[in-house]
């Protein structure tokens, strides 16, 4: 597909791609959004017209070449159009995080010097108006949802549709100017500016050129065989590079359809209705969904419960990898008679065995109930149908998988909205092996990638069929990789960013004259297959007091793979032992508490419950055991831990908006707790300030228990000394 498109001529900018799509795919859906309970859709031709009107309207307002246009709002077609419209008139779109508080927004708006701001709704307009008190260069604010904004002063505030209307009227007058500016766009002109989430310090504006975006989109679309038939759900923050590349870069390149959910709360139902074929989600989303599935299975009937576990266990033993994966290519050709018969046979066998399974297990369950009464769930295990015994070896597994597909995997995938997925990606953090395996065994082609904003997402990706949960894959097409002596990863690619906006020092620090960029992550190549493995942030990898390697992320990830643990922070740099803060997962632990008649009123109370502490201690000890198996990292076993009395939160500055822990801030804020962990105390009092969503502040007080955890191996002796 990609070669075919490239042959049609060079497309040097996103607006050029849009023009091509409007011409080639004019009648195909380009954007859908659920509004008033119905999926409204726009074809490429309609979208191109909307964008043109907006671009002309912006021109009429007096937008200049190189102006920055800030865009703040949830994923809506109108906001994507605004980005392209800005590009069309030579300006640079700057999407911002919509849940950013005023101070964060103030810094970014001040730094990028935006004259135009496009807001989603009243909430964002209010924030911008507040920012305008100190940031004087904002001239025009455009909003999309007019609700609640009627009484505002409209001298510099405009409704999106009014601007479009103005553009329509001014069409004849400004068309030439727009065409001229569009023609000026080249492969090296700026496409977009995205702000990093700022895990460390202030966010930096990453300038990406058309070359970065289009080359990355082209290479990776080819890599995964993405075509015009894909459907994606755009629900990730628009300010994040991933959403920009998936929902704008690749969508423009391939011409596929971008679907926007009705509201953030309806994301799950909308996902199900759309059934995307190409999907991206951070590990946390998969984790939450798996937790929900498990909780709902606990509440289901005995037969369903038994069948679910029977077939999931089977799929996890490798059958899913072997028989479940979707075919790489979607053929649009008509099926031959032989294919039709084969598919019919396969389906009939699946349905036949499924019927048999249900009937046989239902009868067995009846007998089991007579014997065990209410305890039946503990004793009853589902079995394969008798009919399957006719087949041996591969054929047996194959038909059993088809049978499971009809009974368990298919319906489950459908419920989760993953029924049509051909390619799914997860990135950002390590994903738990059980979680990864669960989704893959169901026949979802979930893969990992490793990337960052500065690389226009892609550094390494896992090719189909070479997927493992502990590596991040091979270099993406066009990417070169090298490792420094300290193990830090460097890359060079067509997607490498141009510069940090107004920050030449940082640019020089990150990117050397030859174009190599430091990722700041430490890793190594797996000897067996050449895949890259990431250990941790290079600067987080430290030394313990006795010189052994300290890699906190490695241990934290192992802890977080337990559903009960939401977040963990491990300390130990330059110390003689490792300790940890732990956040429990309220959904999972709350469910456990309900089941075991443990009464609790708040997160804090549940977190301090002795039985919860016992469970977490078990988890910590299990992690210690698995850490001890790795010789290099065996020093990172956790000797002492505590459960925090509140969840780490972005509003309190403890995490970034992309939910990565800000280690330094946590360390400073909870200094008394760390002292207590190393001081050998068994409990510690702490008072913490918290910020509510509306910006007000309060405080939480608690006395936390500190526990000792058993360690394994050489460590044991040392601890005893």
């Amino acid at each position, binding site marked *: 597909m990609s070669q075919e498109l490239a042959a049609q001529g060079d497309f040097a900018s996103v607006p050029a791609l849009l023009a091509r799509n409007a011409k080639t795919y004019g009648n195909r859906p380009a954007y859908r959004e659920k509004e008033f*309970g119905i999926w409204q859709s726009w074809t490429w031709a309609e979208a191109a017209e909307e964008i043109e009107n907006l671009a002309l309207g912006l021109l009429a307002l007096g937008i200049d070449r190189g102006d920055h246009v800030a865009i703040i709002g949830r994923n809506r077609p109108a906001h994507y159009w605004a980005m392209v419209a800005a590009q069309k008139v030579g300006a640079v779109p700057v999407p911002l995080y919509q849940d950013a508080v005023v101070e964060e927004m103030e810094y970014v708006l001040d730094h990028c010097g935006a004259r135009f701001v496009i807001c989603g709704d009243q909430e964002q307009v209010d924030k911008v108006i507040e920012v305008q008190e100190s940031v004087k260069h904002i001239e025009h604010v455009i909003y999309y949802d007019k*609700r*609640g904004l*009627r*009484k505002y002063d409209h001298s510099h505030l405009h409704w999106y549709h009014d601007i479009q209307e103005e553009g329509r009227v001014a069409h004849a007058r400004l068309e030439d100017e727009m065409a001229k500016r569009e023609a000026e766009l080249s492969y090296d002109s700026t496409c977009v500016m995205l702000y990093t989430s700022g895990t460390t310090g202030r966010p930096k504006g990453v300038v990406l050129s058309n070359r970065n975006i289009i080359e990355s989109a082209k290479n990776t679309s080819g890599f995964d065989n993405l075509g015009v038939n894909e459907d994606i759900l755009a629900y990730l923050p628009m300010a994040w590079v991933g959403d920009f590349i998936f929902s704008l870069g690749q969508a423009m390149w391939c011409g596929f359809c971008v679907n926007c959910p*009705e*509201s953030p709360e309806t994301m799950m139902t909308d996902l199900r209705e759309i059934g995307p074929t190409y999907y991206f989600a951070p590990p946390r989303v998969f984790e939450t969904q798996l937790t929900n599935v498990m909780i709902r299975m606990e509440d289901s009937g005995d037969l369903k419960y038994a069948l679910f576990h029977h077939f999931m266990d089977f799929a996890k033993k490798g059958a899913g990898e072997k028989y479940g994966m979707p075919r790489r290519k979607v053929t649009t050709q008509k099926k031959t008679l032989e294919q039709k018969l084969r598919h019919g046979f396969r389906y009939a066998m699946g349905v036949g065995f499924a019927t048999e399974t249900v009937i046989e297990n239902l009868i067995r369950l009846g007998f089991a109930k007579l014997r065990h009464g209410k305890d039946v769930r503990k004793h009853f295990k589902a079995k394969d149908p008798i009919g399957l015994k006719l087949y041996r070896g591969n054929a047996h597994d194959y038909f059993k998988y088809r049978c499971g597909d009809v009974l368990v995997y298919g319906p489950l995938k459908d419920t989760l909205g993953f029924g049509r997925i051909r390619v799914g990606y997860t990135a950002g953090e390590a994903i738990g092996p059980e979680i990864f395996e669960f989704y893959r065994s169901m026949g979802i082609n979930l893969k990992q990638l490793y990337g960052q904003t500065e690389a226009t997402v892609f550094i390494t990706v896992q090719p189909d069929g070479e997927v493992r949960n502990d590596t991040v894959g091979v270099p993406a097409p066009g990417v070169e990789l090298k490792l420094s002596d300290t193990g830090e990863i460097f890359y060079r690619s067509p997607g490498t960013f141009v510069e940090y906006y107004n920050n030449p020092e940082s640019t020089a620090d990150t990117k050397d004259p030859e174009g190599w960029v430091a990722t700041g992550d430490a890793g190594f190549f797996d000897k067996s297959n050449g895949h890259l493995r990431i250990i941790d942030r290079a600067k987080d990898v430290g030394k313990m007091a006795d010189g052994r390697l300290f890699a906190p992320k490695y241990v934290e990830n192992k802890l977080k793979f337990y559903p009960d643990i939401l977040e963990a922070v491990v300390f130990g740099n330059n110390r003689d032992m490792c300790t940890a803060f732990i956040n429990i997962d309220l959904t999972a632990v709350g469910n456990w508490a309900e089941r075991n008649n443990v009464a609790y009123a708040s997160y804090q109370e549940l977190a301090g419950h002795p039985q919860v502490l016992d469970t977490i201690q078990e988890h910590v000890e299990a992690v210690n055991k698995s850490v001890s198996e790795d010789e290099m990292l065996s020093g990172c076993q956790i000797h002492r831990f505590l459960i925090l009395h509140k969840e780490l939160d972005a509003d309190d500055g403890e995490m970034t908006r992309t939910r990565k822990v800000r280690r330094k801030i946590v360390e400073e804020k909870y200094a008394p707790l760390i002292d207590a962990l190393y001081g050998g105390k068994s409990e510690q009092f702490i008072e913490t300030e918290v910020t509510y969503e509306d910006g007000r502040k309060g405080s939480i007080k608690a006395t936390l228990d500190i526990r000792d955890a058993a360690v394994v191996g050489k460590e044991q002796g040392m601890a005893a000394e």
Partner: protein
Amino acid sequence: MTTATDMNASSADSYVTADGRTIGGVVMDLKNITLRFGGVVAIKDISFDIREGEIRAIIGPNGAGKSSMLNVISGFYKPQEGEVWFRGSKRPPMKPYQVARQGLARTFQNIALFDGMTVLDNIMTGRLNHMKANMFQQAIWKGKAEREEIANREICEKVIDFLEIQHIRKTPVGRLPYGLKKRVELARALAAQPSLLLLDEPMAGMNVEEKEDMSRFILDMNDEFGTTIALIEHDMGVVMDLSDRVVVMDYGKKIGDGTPDEVRNNQDVIDAYLGVAHD
């Protein structure tokens, strides 16, 4: 923004509030209402009016007769004495459904939704007064009934969008938490596109955040659709912030009437709320 002068030109009665809303002439006028239950006098000779486009609050201590007053307005109770004037004509004794057809809608102090039905179905019941298709047309479905359903569904969807309850559209009401049920009830009342909306303690039992949301919806509703709203509420902060004029009742009598500021400084009102020695 519109100025006070050009709005005044349209109607002699109307005026513009400080925040730029236009308050029109009198919609509902209650004249010397007295309501008795046997020997108990619930409302004693009360008169007040509600103007087009305003938010009118009725406050008072427990047992003051506020809900009875609302029931008189909605036609559920028939006062023994006094007259109810609606849009310039005297209202004869009516059944509640007839009153609803005149363009009145209300919410209840204790939520009165259909628990087994979904949120959407509940809101659709608010449109029943606007549906004309008879039983046979409903049975055949194609034609009038279908057209009507689509048109009414569109109105309901706009209300759902307005009150931000898209995520529970298909959820049975019985499974919802209290705050959301209150919002669904408001949605049902709003779906009827009333010219006068009666809210009986819309914020009772809510936390601060829910109250803020609800206040925003009430203000937006008044602003966006120009709905006239009469509400009973106990939270003084909310009442003083939201309403244009306040009626204060105590023991079935009206003890104060005016803008929030006037009412706040009224000695009778202060006595009723803080208590005073009866001699």
